[in-house]
């Protein structure tokens, strides 16, 4: 192949190489969230109550223990799983049963869920159970105007025992 033609072929091949790189570095465009949708994220970390209540040891039980281990009150470490339900415009959106973390299941239950929803005004209800009986003992609701692309975060504040809706 003549030298000039070889250089031309090289230029074409280099151009093809950088064209591939240039194209795939920004294209094709990826649609992460449709333009008319918003995002609801449910995210919290909360420890449920202990699975069994603390109790007093009997004298017989105490006698079996080493003297330095004879604590009167014993509290089983395991916690109950946290159950949470989110309802969007009377339709269930999330229903999560979050197990406590840790090998002894004595840590916090953590939840993270995301769901795209149509933009617009929505009524959101949330209820949570963190007690051994399994009843929903915490609840909250809000009516929000979700603009396209907006993110509504539903958190739970364990200190106040209330849901927090952040948008």
């Amino acid at each position: 192949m003549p030298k000039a033609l070889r250089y031309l072929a090289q230029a074409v091949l280099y151009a093809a190489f950088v064209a591939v790189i240039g194209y795939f570095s920004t294209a094709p465009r990826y649609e992460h969230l449709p333009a008319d949708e918003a995002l609801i994220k449910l995210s919290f970390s909360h420890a449920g109550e202990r699975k069994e209540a603390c109790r007093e040891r009997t004298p017989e039980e105490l006698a079996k223990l080493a003297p330095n281990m004879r604590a009167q009150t014993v509290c089983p470490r395991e916690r109950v799983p946290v159950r949470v339900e989110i309802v969007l415009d009377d339709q269930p959106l999330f229903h999560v049963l979050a197990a406590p973390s840790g090998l002894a299941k004595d840590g916090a239950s953590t939840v993270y869920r995301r769901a795209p929803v149509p933009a617009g005004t929505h009524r959101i209800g949330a209820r949570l159970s963190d007690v051994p009986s399994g009843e929903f003992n915490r609840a909250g609701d809000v009516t929000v105007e979700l603009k396209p692309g907006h993110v509504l975060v539903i958190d739970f504040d364990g200190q106040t025992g209330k849901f927090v809706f952040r948008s």
Partner: protein
Amino acid sequence: MMRLPSPAALPRVGLSQGERRKSEPLSLRERGRGEGGIWPALHRALQHVERAFDLAFGQRLNPWRHLGALCFWCFWIVAATGICVYAAFDTSVSGAYASVERITQNAWPLGGIARSLHRYASDALVVIVLAHLAREWIAGHARGFRWFSWLSGLPLLWLLYLSGIGGYWLVWDRLAQFSLIATAEWLDWLPFFGEPLVRNFIAGESVTDRFFSLLIFLHIGIPLLLLTGMWVHIQRISRPQTNPPQAIALGFLIALLVLAISRPALSGAPADLATAPAALDLDWLYLGIHPLLYAASAGALWVLIGGATVLLALLPWLPPLPRPLAARVDLANCNGCGRCFADCPYAAVTLQPRTDSKSLPRQAIVDADLCAGCGICAGACPSSTPFRSVEALVTGIDMPQQPIDALRLELERAIASLKGDTRIVVFGCDSGTDIGSLAASDTAALKLICTGMLPPSFVEYALRAGIDGVLVTGCRYGDCEFRLGNRWIEERLAAAREPHLRPAVPIERVRIAWAGPTDAEALSAELVRFRAALATLPIAAGAGHVRPKRAEVAHG
């Protein structure tokens, strides 16, 4: 040209048929690509692609044969431009985006070009790494004695991905926000984190300057780990090529510069955790994994990526290959000169203090675990000369599957049997063009494990025995199955490397023609041209001085 009846497989003397079957060098089929099916087709396709590139670049500057070195080159471009960008980067969460914008707008000298070059060279690195991986896999280099190079390359894929993706986060634009959250959501599937990582990106105030310092630390530290891994990756080969030829290096740099100037890398809108990005101009080479997460699930993506990693890691042993027979040292004929040590492509030969009573300081030792069984060491050994007047030619280092003595015997038989006005001996290899089809009444074709196994003295031996010309062929230049074979034989025949072809040898009667498995026609044409050129030469003085020593060979 008259052809011999069945020239396809030239026999190798010195081993019984059973031994030969057991110990022949690993053919393409044996290297694990299977009989028929997709692998030979892929290999042929790759050969055709490389041949097309040869037309434009030539065999020596073909980028396909310098992919590993190009990876290093891209890494250095990324490192240099990264330092340039870092000098003007604000590592605070509030200042990062603005500083990248300033860099892009050339507040820092050539900052925009440096940033773009940093990004495109990183992208080029991904493409070249994947091409390198695919090429070695198709060539059957994932298996057998190359297992270490293959396996040590695997973590580099992860380190490259982590190095690249971290760079996108530092810009702290909408793309960074998307990538960071997607990565956290992916990682949270693993049962290692008590608190979900993604909770760190729920609200804007949760992203702090300290977090950005951590990102910077990772974006510098992981590439340094990558470089360390690259160094480990090349430890099992001698003379690794970590710098591409200047022409290619320059070509790639100019091409990337043109791209950086014509299509500068730009940031998206600043990150805003209160909103979710709708459409994104994704860098699919690094961030293409995120859409998979949302198309499937975090668990499915881990299964896919983890499964692919495990599969790649197991490839060298799926199924295990028999080891090639390793070179053997004959201490009585080894003077410890070190040529085999210098030429071994896989650092399998070392020089150690002498263990016999000879008053020589060193001897060659072969590590069978590292030996590729290529025979290049036998070609380098000064005692591998057919002129030695011994009945059995025992060399200092030799291949059990094709001893040098057997090669001499085969050459002598060929010399004795050739007829015609212009008699040619062709030395070829197992991995290049199948030279069996060249064999004819006036042409002998001798196959070696690798052309680098050919001692130059065999060329002189053939010419002095009255042969008119010697054609040396093998894999295309730079594509040697055993890395350095065609380079070494070129240098030996050009008297630039020991053992060299003696100056008295008429060099016009020696020709080198590199030809890959798909170049049979081109090699035949080259042989015709060589024969025509030889016919115009005067009869060489000294030709016919050497005669086969053993009568049974001459008659055989």
